[in-house]
């Protein structure tokens, strides 16, 4: 099957998912991001790599943080940034996703940053661009349904590499609502591609997808067992709506079993780092003492996120 993310030379032309990307491309993105870290520290935080290019932030689903970091990243690359919040009402008017894309391509868009509630929506856009012969227009997935959030996955990898240096000796635990999490899926693919020998998923059966083992993940239902001797803990956000159905009885019971407290964190290695894609639900998936504690690297993740998104946009637009 043709991988729609790669051009005929095997280079990254869209970033749709971590799955299917070779290790060399992930490493290339992380290395490029490292070189951009220095730009953000300058007085004049700009490089001219995307000068004259138009980046459209196309958010079919609300997001402040991800959209803002993409906007900052694009501006530091000297691109023109146009933010479009396309809520449900405009699609209810009858314009399809691809109609919207055609219109924006006619406005000379060079790169789309897309967030959409449906898994696979960025693939549809990328395939459409190929069909209409616009391989000069690129797509970066900023989160599609439950499927993927590849820039988050990459910034998580950047963070892990920053603190732990070598992926090949690590034990990483992902905790919480993996079933509905695009971040978890991207992290799992990135970790296994980069050679992490042991990836663990911790959560109740209601929040774990079936056949996780096929993705190379070890499943734990008991957090005390799952956190034992891990180097990295990735906490996931628990959406409020998960508490209203039959998935979980209550926030309190969830926190007692799967909330990260200092006591539970003590089971991990002493130098373990704690990550979270944000926004955090304090007291639901994470105790404030951990979120604000010395092992948390949650704010550095945000900073690295800008450099990683600069790297992704400059690489796809350059190919």
């Amino acid at each position, binding site marked *: 099957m043709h991988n729609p993310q790669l051009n005929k030379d095997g280079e990254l032309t869209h970033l749709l998912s971590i*799955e299917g990307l070779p290790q060399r491309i992930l490493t290339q993105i992380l290395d490029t991001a490292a070189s951009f870290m220095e730009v953000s520290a300058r007085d004049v935080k700009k490089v001219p790599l995307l000068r004259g290019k138009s980046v459209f932030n196309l958010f079919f689903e609300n997001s402040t943080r991800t959209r803002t970091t993409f906007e900052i990243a694009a501006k530091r690359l000297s691109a023109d940034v146009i933010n479009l919040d396309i809520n449900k009402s405009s699609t209810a008017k009858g314009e*399809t996703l691809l109609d919207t894309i055609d219109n924006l391509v006619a406005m000379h868009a060079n790169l789309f940053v897309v967030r959409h509630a*449906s*898994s*696979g929506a960025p693939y549809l856009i990328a395939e459409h661009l190929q069909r209409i012969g616009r391989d000069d227009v690129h797509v970066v997935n900023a989160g*599609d*349904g439950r499927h993927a959030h590849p820039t988050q996955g990459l910034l998580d990898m950047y963070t892990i590499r920053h603190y732990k240096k070598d992926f090949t000796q690590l034990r990483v635990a992902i905790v919480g609502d993996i079933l509905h999490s695009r971040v978890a899926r991207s992290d799992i693919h990135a970790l296994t591609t980069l050679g992490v020998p042991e990836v663990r998923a911790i959560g109740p059966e209601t929040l774990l997808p*079936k056949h996780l083992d096929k993705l190379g993940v070890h499943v734990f239902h008991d957090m005390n067992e799952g956190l034992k001797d891990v180097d990295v803990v990735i906490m996931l956000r628990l959406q409020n709506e998960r508490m209203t159905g039959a998935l979980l009885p209550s926030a309190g019971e969830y926190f007692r079993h799967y909330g990260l407290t200092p006591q539970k964190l003590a089971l991990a290695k002493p130098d373990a780092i704690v990550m979270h894609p944000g926004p955090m639900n304090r007291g639901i998936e994470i105790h404030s003492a951990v979120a604000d504690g010395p092992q948390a690297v949650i704010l550095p993740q945000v900073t690295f996120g800008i450099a990683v998104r600069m790297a992704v946009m400059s690489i796809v637009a350059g190919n």
Partner: protein
Amino acid sequence: MNIEIKNGRVIDPKNGVDRKATLYIVDGKIAGLGDAPAGFSADKTVDAAGCVVCPGLIDLGARLNSIEAELAAAVAGGVTSVVVPPDADPPLDEPELADRLVHRGAEIGKARVLPLGALTLGLQGERLAELAGLKKAGCVAFSQANRTVVDTEALLRAMEYAATFGFAIWLQPQDHWLSRNGIAHEGEVSSRLGLAGIPVAAETIAVGTIVQLVRDTGCRVHLTRLSSAAGVALIQRAQHEGLPVTFDIGVHHLLLTENDIGYFNPHARFSPPLRAQGDRQALSTAAAAGLAPICSDHTPVGADDKLLPFGEAKPGATGLEVLLPLTLKWAEEAKVTLPDALARITSAPAKVLGLASGELGVGAVADICIFDPEATWQLTPEALKSRGKNSPWIGYMLTGKVKSTLVGGRVVFEA
């Protein structure tokens, strides 16, 4: 009119016929095979050299959104009778609607139209439709199409009522609660792609419920579009018990699995969903053993309704014109003989319907499909007469091409 079809390989699975012979038709009926009936002189001769001559295909499930185009598609695919599910707009829940559909079909004069009446008003699963009235208007059985009767009491009453009159009910076994949010088989692929899953239990729970109600009511039930190994196993058990339960399989489910979703291909979205390799294998084994007929589940969908993210795209594929070549493709893969494969789309569906057609015995109606079993053709949108150009096989080379189709002794299609 007297017609002779010469030089063809006549395959009549019902009567165990497979030989090169001339088929004679008089007044719309089969009048002889090999030996001309007394005093026969042909008004028309069809040369079927290199072709198979078999009963016209009977398709147990085809939606006719634009009836003229779809009935033309049917005969272009060698299909001479189509069972139409009631989920049209409006649903087929009143005798006048069924009456109109039957008359419109006859007026067009291509494939025979066999409507399924709605079991409940508006297919809402609550109040019974006028079953006897619908039957009188030409409905062959009653169905909810692929919607569920959520209220088990309503289902029980419907089956009791249908049993009273000896009517059959067709149901697609799918538990409402376990399937309502899902868009793909709950398995490896749905986990990987982040698609909400429909577990196999959605099918087995519904089969279990229906079988129990059959046991209690004696209602004859035909289960449509089975998708899982476990579902088929449950039905087989009910059949061994002697319960009046039959089932069919959509041809796409014999050939495709969840893996064919690939990178969110909306053409691989079906209801019920394509399931795992083991499920496909079990369906194939059941079809090969002659336990179930194969149908197209023809669902024409507009291009715009497929150019959407996977979960928003409408499920289903065009089927009437690919039923024959896809059945042949399956037969080759499953090592099923040509006569056995043709039985699954002719005599087997006729048996489910209790029809006398689906065979070429003397006296049978002359519904006939003549096809070249070796001819290959590329499936393109332009090659399809159906308005539905939606198919996971677009671009593929298919083998088996219909040359001519007769309904009641009239040539209704010629390539």
